[in-house]
């Protein structure tokens, strides 16, 4: 018989109070501010914005503080918050060619218009812990240099001039960009929807899948055509005005992956492409995204689907860490009744086996 039980209210209240205490930590230390998190843990803020699929640095910092630095919890908080807001509309597509570039590198061309701009990178650091950061020592102002009046040209445009690379990726005129926050996921899906899912996908998951393609599970021979990080203008059409106005700028990371080529009887050999675009500064995520985007184009490009990274349903269904954590973590919630049922079943099965064994023995004894 199932008897409904209640309880735990006081325990839950006290647990949350204890959580608030542990979140605050040692009271003799100053509390960390939202501005400090935005300024000094900026890449954590960027990751939360990217995977929550909501660009707002102050709210992402608040979520990080509230979650004690648990990134997936912070992403969950921000996702939950976004559901409380109405949507005013969609932006004009951002123009990454007009980006205010803060970092731009290419692994395919040494000398290219705009140059190799390293920006604030961890690359070429020695990965040695820096004892000077144990204390609050003054930090030098950055070096400056006159800027050449040179457009930081997109690498894909350089290759496109020679016709050696496929186009950016077009759909027919009447194609409406899908929105997975409005429609349920259906497979197979178009590339625009896949990119939306990947842009909010878990960095670790996409990194592992991208890595798997490099190790031979759906190899597609990638080169980083370009990674660029910087600010782009976000514009929206205002109905009252009848034209688009700027809302301000956001920082994004773009990766153009240039991949193995293939020709056919109709088309000459051409490089193919994978694309990554992510909120904030996160080239690891943008690169992983472009590797996985390219892998998921296997069917479109007539390649054999043999590896996990090429399996659209597998990748997209498991890329969202809020969904994943919800289903994994629900296992810790009370399953008392389910388990009692299973326990009773196992006991009965064992009793049956025991009985049949004893029955056999009895019969043998009888025969002897």
């Amino acid at each position: 018989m199932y008897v409904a039980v209640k309880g735990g209210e006081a325990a839950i209240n006290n647990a949350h109070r204890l959580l608030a205490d542990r979140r605050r930590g040692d009271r003799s230390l100053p509390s960390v501010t939202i501005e400090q998190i935005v300024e000094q843990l900026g890449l954590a803020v960027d990751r939360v914005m990217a995977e929550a699929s909501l660009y707002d640095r102050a709210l992402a910092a608040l979520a990080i503080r509230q979650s004690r630095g648990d990134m997936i919890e912070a992403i969950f908080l921000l996702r939950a918050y976004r559901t409380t807001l109405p949507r005013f509309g969609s932006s004009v597509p951002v123009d990454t060619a007009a980006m205010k570039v803060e970092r731009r590198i290419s692994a395919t061309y040494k000398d290219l218009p705009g140059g190799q701009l390293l920006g604030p990178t961890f690359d070429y650091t020695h990965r040695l812990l820096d004892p000077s950061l144990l204390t609050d020592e003054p930090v030098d102002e950055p070096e400056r240099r006159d800027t050449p009046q040179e457009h930081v040209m997109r690498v894909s445009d350089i290759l496109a001039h020679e016709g050696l690379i496929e186009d950016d990726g077009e759909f027919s005129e009447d194609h409406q960009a899908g929105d997975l926050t409005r429609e349920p996921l259906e497979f197979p899906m178009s590339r625009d929807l896949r990119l939306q899912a990947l842009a909010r996908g878990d960095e670790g998951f996409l990194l592992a899948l991208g890595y798997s393609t490099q190790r031979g599970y759906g190899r597609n021979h990638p080169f980083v055509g370009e990674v660029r990080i910087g600010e782009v203008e976000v514009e929206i059409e205002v109905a009252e005005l009848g034209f688009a106005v700027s809302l301000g700028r956001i920082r994004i990371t773009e990766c153009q992956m240039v991949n193995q080529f293939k020709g056919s009887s109709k088309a000459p050999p051409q490089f193919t492409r994978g694309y990554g675009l992510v909120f904030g500064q996160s080239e690891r995520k943008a690169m992983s995204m472009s590797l996985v985007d390219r892998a998921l184009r296997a069917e479109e490009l007539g390649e054999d689907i043999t590896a996990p990274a090429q399996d659209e349903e597998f990748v997209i269904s498991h890329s969202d860490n809020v969904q994943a954590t919800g289903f994994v973590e629900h296992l810790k919630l009370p399953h008392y009744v389910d388990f009692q049922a299973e326990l009773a079943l196992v006991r009965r099965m064992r009793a049956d086996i025991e009985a049949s064994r004893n029955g056999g023995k009895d019969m043998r004894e009888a025969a002897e």
Partner: protein
Amino acid sequence: MDLAKQIEPNAEIAARRRAAGLLARATTDELHAAWDKLPAKPEVKPVRGPETGLVMVRGRIGGGGAPFNLGEATVTRATVLLVSGTAGHAQALGTAKANVRLAAIFDALWQEDGTRDFVEATLLGPIEARVAAEDKQKAEETAATRVDFFTMVRGDD
């Protein structure tokens, strides 16, 4: 057709776009400083907001291809009406409602002949200068990290 009449609306739209873009970048301090300097504070009726919502930021596949939905951003907008009948709109990324309300008032004042110069001189001009200075500094800091390749010349040529 009169060419001037064709050009004029475009110039007016470009001017309004510039003003709206600068107002979206205004800081709390800049807005308050301009408000404090305003000789006659206008009587303002709220029409809509200030209210916070979302804008779906779109990208393009491959950078220049078909649009796709990248993710949302918070945005706050407001519409106000001056007693004179001029409506002001403002919208900016983020959740700063008080700022956006003030920006909408300045948008209305900017449209009126009597106050446009004031708004230009005390608010839009300083914002434009600040943004340009910030951009220049960032660009120069980035330029300092540009790689200058050089070729090692062998001695036995």
